[in-house]
């Protein structure tokens, strides 16, 4: 149920974010979604990519420091209170959300959100118990092609 996310370290200065994008483009690798967290000095670029193993390889060859982290992608009702409902489930379990960001595409009439939990397995179980649709890799990559 978990999705592999690629993250990489970037210095916070002009032109830095375009470098990894160029590397991926050259290798014909598509980015499904991304998020950028930054401080004054540095940033962390997080990418969801179907061919994450290939992406990791080409980025590392280009000299970037790349980590792979497991994240959870869930469907969220695209209406007021949709996200709040998910968060409530997580909160009740005492699970911590390290960070979250949204996908650019939808799953039917629902939005898709990526979560980085401190206890991903526990979170998945809680979400599934409450009937929330957690997407696995295959489902996710299919949706992205629709």
């Amino acid at each position, binding site marked *: 149920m978990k999705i592999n*996310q690629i993250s990489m*370290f970037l210095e916070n200065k002009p032109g830095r974010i375009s470098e990894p994008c160029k590397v991926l483009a050259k290798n014909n690798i598509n980015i499904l979604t991304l998020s950028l967290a930054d401080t004054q000095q540095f940033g962390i670029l997080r990418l969801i990519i179907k061919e994450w193993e290939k992406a990791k390889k080409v980025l590392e060859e280009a*000299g970037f*420091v790349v980590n792979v982290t497991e994240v959870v992608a869930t469907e969220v009702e695209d209406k007021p209170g949709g996200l709040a409902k998910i968060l409530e489930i997580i909160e009740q379990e005492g699970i911590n959300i390290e960070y979250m960001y949204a996908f650019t595409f939808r799953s039917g009439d629902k939005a898709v959100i990526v979560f980085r939990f401190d206890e991903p397995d526990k979170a998945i179980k809680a979400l599934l118990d409450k009937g929330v649709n957690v997407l696995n890799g295959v489902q996710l990559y299919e949706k992205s092609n629709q």
Partner: protein
Amino acid sequence: MVSYWHDGSSIFNPISAVEYLPEEYLIKIQFHRLKVMIKRAYEKVPLFRQRLEERNITPDNIKSLEDINLLPFFVKTDLRDTYPFGLFASPMEEIIRLHASSGTTGKPIVVAYTKEDIEIWADVMARCLVSCGVERGDIVQNAYGYGLFTGGLGFHYGAEALGATVIPISGGNTDRQIMIMKDFNVTVICCTPSYFTHIIERAGELGVDLKSLPLRIGIFGAEPWSEGMREYIQREANIEAYDVYGLSEIIGPGVGIECKCREGLHILEDHFYPEIIDPETLQPVPEGEEGELVLTTLSKKAMPMIRYRTRDITAFYKEKCKCGRTTRRIRKISRRSDDMFIIRGVNVYPSQIESALLSVEGSTPHYQIRLTRDHGLDQMEILIEVTKEMFSDRIGELEKLQEKFAQAIERTVNLRVNVRLVEPHTIPRSEGKAKRIIDERKI
């Protein structure tokens, strides 16, 4: 009195009479003191005896001042290896003061003084102050750090010995420094040159016109500074700025001082015998050529030092000084033969930074030390290349790591530094080895 010894451009004070001795008398004093010191060091300090024995010599082999060439060199690691008291030549009953300066491994270098040593130190410092034109009646604001660092107490005792009025304000609290400078009609300031440029800037912000104050002399040392900086200080504060040289291993400040001519620093060579050697061959360089300054203490009791390699690069002036002093002069020191650098008066070795980084990560990352000067204050920034092991997808983790590095460095060198994580392969390497220090300070 005795005005025929000099051209009137310098102040004569009986305390500095020895600096005007004809050369042959000075050599006699030096040789006599050297003999006594070597004998004492040989008898009292096992390391000195051992090094002399390795060369098959005894103090009796020293038959002239030139024979100092026969003696072995000593280096900073000798102090570290004998930490803390291994080089003391006096029993603790006769030692009345200990000082310490930063060492290469976090352990300080310890130095000791007998009562007589302290008196000599006060005497050479008083002579230094005279050389810069300080007199009784002057009010001396001593903004060198008081404590284990030799700067504060060295100037303090010297100014008192001369009979000037000392304000033992120590370093820091710039606003108060400026207030006291103004309110107490201070005429002499002693501090690091970079700190004084900070005072100049702050005074400007506070609307205090240093040029209009009675301040007339500044004595600056403990770090290298340039002629450009001297011009700036003299212009902005309307004072005469003098360079002072010294190192804890020899005595502290008081080893060398500029005179009114400000063409090199006179070595107080009746107490500290200077040589300049080629750091590669260890042979003396031809007179006037550049090399590493080597110093031998001629009178120190508690902790004699034989041919101590200072790592400071300088050269002797060939001509006698116009001020009339017969003591030899060295060129203002601008660089060192090793990679040590001085920041805010603190000696720092890249190896110290390296061991601090090692303690955090378990391996040494690629790093670079960048020294800059911001509003007159030295800043140290450490760039660290992020490795796979360090990297986390969480901002908080990386910020925590930065802070861990900064704290480890602070524990080692006692300085707060900026740590900046950078992308891999962004620190230039030459022949596989990273350039460790980028000094962008304009001195």
